[in-house]
């Protein structure tokens, strides 16, 4: 015998399908929605409808977009010769927050994972290759996640891109800035050691007189 009436059970089931929502949370959210005023619940419903009706994927880079091109592709101050390849639109947001990248993006919409049935055909890989020549792309930055599937995807893309004569780079891995060494896990710290760099002893010449003044 079902514990709830059909509409409630439906809502619980639908919520339970969302990522990160288990059966208990689904129930809690469903009963919360039953309890709040109608307009609050309807606002949520309308937000979902609006997202599905108005938001599309950018036909060029497959980032989320409203209307035609996404906000990055539509910005003609961006450098079209450098493309940053990410797995997910959320990663675009993450890279944008750095403010350190002025090129365009390409969103693969996933990473290679045969277990989940995701091969090259399920990702926007052909679309990336097709962009290289017409857009005059000279560098592709592989910005997939530093986990097994992300690394495999990066390696796969490198194989396809290198024959095309573009510069292919991979983001570095290492320690989070502002963190403490002792809190770093062994693998990250190991990678950071592997990727160490020579310290440039570039004390600019003009600092010398300044120090002499102090002394």
């Amino acid at each position: 015998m079902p514990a709830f009436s059909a509409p409630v059970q439906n809502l619980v089931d639908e919520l339970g399908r969302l990522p990160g929502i288990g059966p208990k949370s689904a129930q809690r959210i469903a009963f919360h929605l039953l309890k709040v005023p109608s307009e609050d619940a309807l606002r949520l419903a309308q937000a979902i409808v609006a997202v599905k009706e108005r938001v599309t994927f950018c036909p060029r880079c497959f980032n989320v977009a409203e209307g035609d091109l996404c906000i990055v592709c539509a910005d003609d101050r961006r450098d079209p010769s450098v493309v940053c390849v990410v797995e997910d639109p959320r990663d675009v947001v993450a890279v944008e927050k750095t403010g350190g990248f002025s090129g365009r993006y390409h969103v693969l919409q996933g990473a290679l994972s045969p277990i989940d049935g995701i091969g090259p055909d399920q990702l926007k890989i052909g679309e990336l290759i097709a962009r290289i020549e017409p857009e005059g792309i000279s560098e592709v930055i592989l910005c997939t996640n530093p986990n097994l599937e992300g690394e495999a995807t990066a390696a796969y893309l490198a194989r396809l891109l290198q024959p095309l004569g573009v510069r292919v780079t991979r983001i570095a891995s290492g320690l989070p800035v502002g963190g403490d060494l002792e809190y770093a896990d062994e693998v990250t710290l190991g990678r950071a050691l592997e990727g160490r760099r020579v310290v440039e002893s570039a004390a600019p010449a003009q600092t010398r007189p300044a120090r002499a003044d102090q002394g």
Partner: protein
Amino acid sequence: MYLRSLTLTDFRCLRELSFEPDPEGVTVVTGPNGTGKTSVLEAIAYLATQQSFRGVPRESLVRVGATAAVVRGVAVAGERSVSVDAEVSLATRSRMLVNGQPVRRRSDLDNGVQATVFTPEDTEVVRGGPAARRRFLDDAVALVTPVEAAHIETVERVLRQRAALLKRSHGHVNGDLATTLDVWDQRLAAAGTALSEARERVLSALAPEATETVTQLTGSRTAVGLTYRRSWNGSLEDALAAGRADDLVRGTTLVGPHRDDVELTLDGLAARTHASQGEQRTLALALRLATHRLATHRLATPPVLLLDDVFSELDHHRAASLLATVPPGQTLLTTAVPPPPTVPVAATIVLGQGAAA
């Protein structure tokens, strides 16, 4: 380090048990069959690894009829004491706290309880199939060179991804699939080679320790040979490329660290086929004790030594030599029969009345 106190609630068949093992000597856990002697060791090992050494799902650690099992321990190293609390719940997620803080990754447990476990099933390392030897070796890698332990998980994950890809191909390879396979092969070759090398390094460190331990246990000089047998020659990437046609037909990866083995010899003779049962048990125990010594060396303090039902495995003479062999440190052992008189028992816990003596 040593375990100052241990408290169990609804763990296996133990409703409630609390005791303080001897800090540096031998604590004997005794009682009739089925009273939970092994469970006491299992609980301590759980604090060390978040796993049961019996290889069962966590839920089976909860006493039948109860909803959660709780294990609390206090580990002392030098002047520092660290509380480690574990809860295995049937209703919610299992959790573990070190000094009241949730454990997020394996290395968070480094300051807590460390343990070396020997159980009668360890004889499988000598007598059984290659999987038992690989498991023993991977345990040793994780204990002696924890940084290398990440390769164990990477290899498992790549193998699962590669198997899914091989099955999906139905034996046919087009250009796209070949490139995708190349990419996974590259990952497998890198992690697989690193894992095999880590295992080889641990083995060559174990061999002299094992020889010394067997010699002490038996009272006669016996050379223990530990030879790693890779399932491939040359580079793993080349071997994977050469084996690809076979792999596609079988839908599984036929070379790699998951197919490697260790050849164990006593004075040059294969222990699996030529050693007596007693010799096999002694060798299995010596391998564990050798790992214990290496771990003691790395941690600069001995882990807690947990010996399950060790006297049923050894004669009196070897049992006495065993305790002379182990490096000084806290030892807990279970036995259904009285320990040999030569064993220096510092404390005894008698199970069976539902409480500790």
